[in-house]
């Protein structure tokens, strides 16, 4: 069964890059471009992992993270925060809100994919 990743970012070009990367790594992807969309996609798409930008119009990434963590059925969803804000306070805020990982932009493609693979417990084959 293919693992599903929800990409949430409002930067068109970054979304394009992430989609390309993750599809090449064998994940099924869906895109949301703001916080509201992200929440409805989580419900309908039921992703295994959410790649979450912090600075977005309407609900910030922090808020989305908080909502997902507050929902009992969504506890197993992994959350990776992606942000151009790299100060310690922001990292720890993300982690304290329940993110599994906080990745600072710009990132290395290989590292990001490796971390996502590790979180989702298996190689790109994902083949359980």
């Amino acid at each position, binding site marked *: 069964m293919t693992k599903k990743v929800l990409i949430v970012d409002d930067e068109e070009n970054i979304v394009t890059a992430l989609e390309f990367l993750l599809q090449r790594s064998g994940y099924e992807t869906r895109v949301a471009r703001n916080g509201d*969309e992200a929440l409805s996609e989580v419900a309908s798409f039921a992703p295994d992992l959410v790649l979450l930008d912090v600075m977005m119009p309407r609900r910030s990434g922090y808020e989305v993270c908080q909502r997902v963590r507050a929902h009992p059925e969504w506890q197993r969803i992994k959350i990776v925060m992606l942000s*151009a804000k790299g100060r310690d306070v922001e990292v720890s805020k993300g982690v304290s809100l329940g993110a599994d990982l906080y990745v600072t*932009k*710009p990132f290395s*493609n*290989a590292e990001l994919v490796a971390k996502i693979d590790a979180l989702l417990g298996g190689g790109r084959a994902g083949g359980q």
Partner: protein
Amino acid sequence: MLQGGVIVVSSFAYLGLLFAIAYYADKRADAGRSVIASPYIYSLSLAVYATAWTFYGSVGRAAVDGVGFLPIYIGPTLMIALWWVVMRKILRISKQNRITSLADFIASRYGKSALLGGMVTVIAVIGIVPYISLQLKAVSNGFLILMQYPEIVMPAKVGAVPVLQDTALWVALILALFTIAFGTRHLDAAEHHEGMVAAIAFESLVKLLAFVAVGVYVTFVIYDGFGDVFARAAADRALAPMLTPLEGVAGSYSNWIWLTILSMLAIMFLPRQFQVSVIENKDESHLNKAIWLFPLYMLAINVFVLPLAFGGRLHFPAGVVDADTYVLTIPMAEKQELLALLVFIGGLSAATGMVIVETIALSTMACNDLLMPVLLRMKSLRLNERLDLTGLLLGIRRGAIVLILLLGYLYFRLAGEAYALVSIGLISFAAVAQFAPAALGGIFWKGGTRRGALAGLLAGFLVWSYTLLLPALARSGWLPVALLEQGPWGIGLLRPLELFGLKGLDQITHAMIWSMVANIGAYVAGSLSGSPSAEETRQASLFVDVLRGGGAGARFWRGTASAPQLYGVLARFLGTEGADEAFRSYAGARGLRWPAEQVTADADFVHFAETQLAGAIGAASARIMVASVVKEEALSLEEVRNILDEASQVVMYSHQLEQKSRELEEATTELRAANERLKELDRLKDDFLSTVTHELRTPLTSIRAFTEILHQEPEIDAAQRRKFLGIITRETERLTRLINQVLDLAKIEAGRALWHETRVDMQQVISDAVTAMGQVFEEKGIRVDVRMPERVSPVHADLDRMIQVMLNLLSNAVKFCDPAAGRIEIALSESDGWLRVDVRDNGAGISAQDQQAIFDKFRQVGDTLTDKPHGTGLGLPISRHIIEHHAGRLWVESERGQGATFSFDLPVAS
């Protein structure tokens, strides 16, 4: 109805009422709920200044020389303004030293000199006795005149009545009893006579009410207001000279000045004034209200004096009725029985108030400063060995009261006829004015010594006796009148009324000038001619420096004492109860439970005991008593000076320390504020950096991601490769733009930007900008309308910057305008020396709360998926800076859904 019985009964009823008030106030004081602790009561009690002399005598004097009586009330008004400084100091000193009277005050200042205290007492008694006799005269005359109602008959000559049938004697005796009842309930004279003060305040109300009542009656009932009284007086041949321009005021201006000065001193140094203003003062802050309330009282009681005087003179044929009695005789002549009775009661209250307070003050002085020091020194009396002296002390005071009143009566019998009321009063004023140099000098000049004070007082008193008392005796027939006319032994220069040939002044002015010259001269000369003793030096410092935290009298004492012996002394003068109370309070303040725990008789305690004792028997006597039971090491003058120097250095250091710590505090506050400002700036800088970093990282992220993809995935197809390379290019451009703008803004904000200002044609600027953006408009399908007049004036500006602003505004408009049917309108207009450019889009508009925010750095407004702006967030802040640099404004007007209009204006080049 106004028979003798009614008058007597009313008088006694009034005195009874007074006694009831005093009794009630004393009871309340014992219960710790004082009724006199009010600035209003304090102010009213000061009005004991207005005696029968004011009540009857002012009108009498006004009837003779118009406004001549007024300095007696204007003087105190001026003096009381100085009380803020002077009286506050006296109050502080008196409370610290438990001063019991004016004599005690002066004696205490000059080294607790018993001699000086005794001298002040003698002068006060001699000087005040005539004044008391004047009150007796006023009351008995008032009574005798009222008894004749409805006839108006002046009383017979004083000497014509046998002593025992003389009303004045009975008045004196009744007042003596009354005063004893009021004034000698407590022994400690430094304690307040609360009952007396309450009664005096009430009396002040009664006399004011009575006087104003008769004044209103005469002015508005008999006559038709002030104007009418004066108009009729002006029409009267005898009175007219008093109304048309006066020859000077009251004869001469110099008399007026001296009368003012005299009464300025009297308000402070009349024994009764010192009693109510200092000894009976409960709270220093009461001064504040009294400073204007008391003058107001005097103004009120004087408003009707002139109408009454003129009314009286118009009413009665010349020479028939004594002008001093007009207040009473006018209502009698008009058959106003009740009013006449009220006036009599008013006069009675004025007289009794004065007599009660004055005799209490004088008897305290006579006891503490005259008799006790003498008795204590007389070894044969063995007073030191008697266990309880409280009874003796009270007996002395009561005897002194009776004696003083009888002296007053005696003077009345012997000399009272020679003078009008006002003149007698002024003689007393001049006597107490002799205290001024020693008392005022003593609180401001440390150099004043006992020797100087004695010399000054003696000289002043002798001159007073010679120029005022002697003539009074001569006129009463006790000395040959030739003495006045030719001078003693026929020496003209020594004529008492024209001493050393000083002529043309009235008697009081003449006496004041000479006595003050002698007094002040001797005081200063005596003080400077010798050096003070240790005790004097120390007291001088305690008095003069009282406001600078003085009062540590204990530090001057060295010796050994025993607590039981001191207890014995206190018990003798205060009674065992008083001594117990004193010991308990002293021990309590040091956390000891007396008598279980004994107090140590150290310097502090000896000082405390002496001060307690001084409150009962005066400073000089207390000194003698304490010295008799403690072994004292006399401090040399040198030692006292050292202590004082040390103390003044400590004071100086602590002043400096205070100043330094105040400065330090200010500096700290400033530093804290500066630090806050720096922190705020730091925070802003931090935020800015964080935002800039964020903005830089976003394009970098795309660039890095695609670069790695292209690098690591060689097999992606050409179309995709082209697309990714395009993204990299655009994001690189975005990065460059951002960096340029950050640098640009930093330069402008720091004022380091270079401006190439020339005459700029805005039409050209707009056309260039629209042309440059042409391709963008075309791509997005946006219609652009430009409306410009034929010609506009040029502006003085940097051409490139103007184009930069236009491009910013246009790309802004492109971003925000309707994506389907975009439309931008540009308008240029000129009016009143200003050019204005509007750039209007047809987008979603900007909400009111965002309109200010968009001019902040990196604040992009946009919240839908599609309108994520791709500007840097710096365009508008930069544009605004540029326009403001050119003295214009840049602003936005918009409503949600109505599009937005960005406008700026610029002044036309001159």
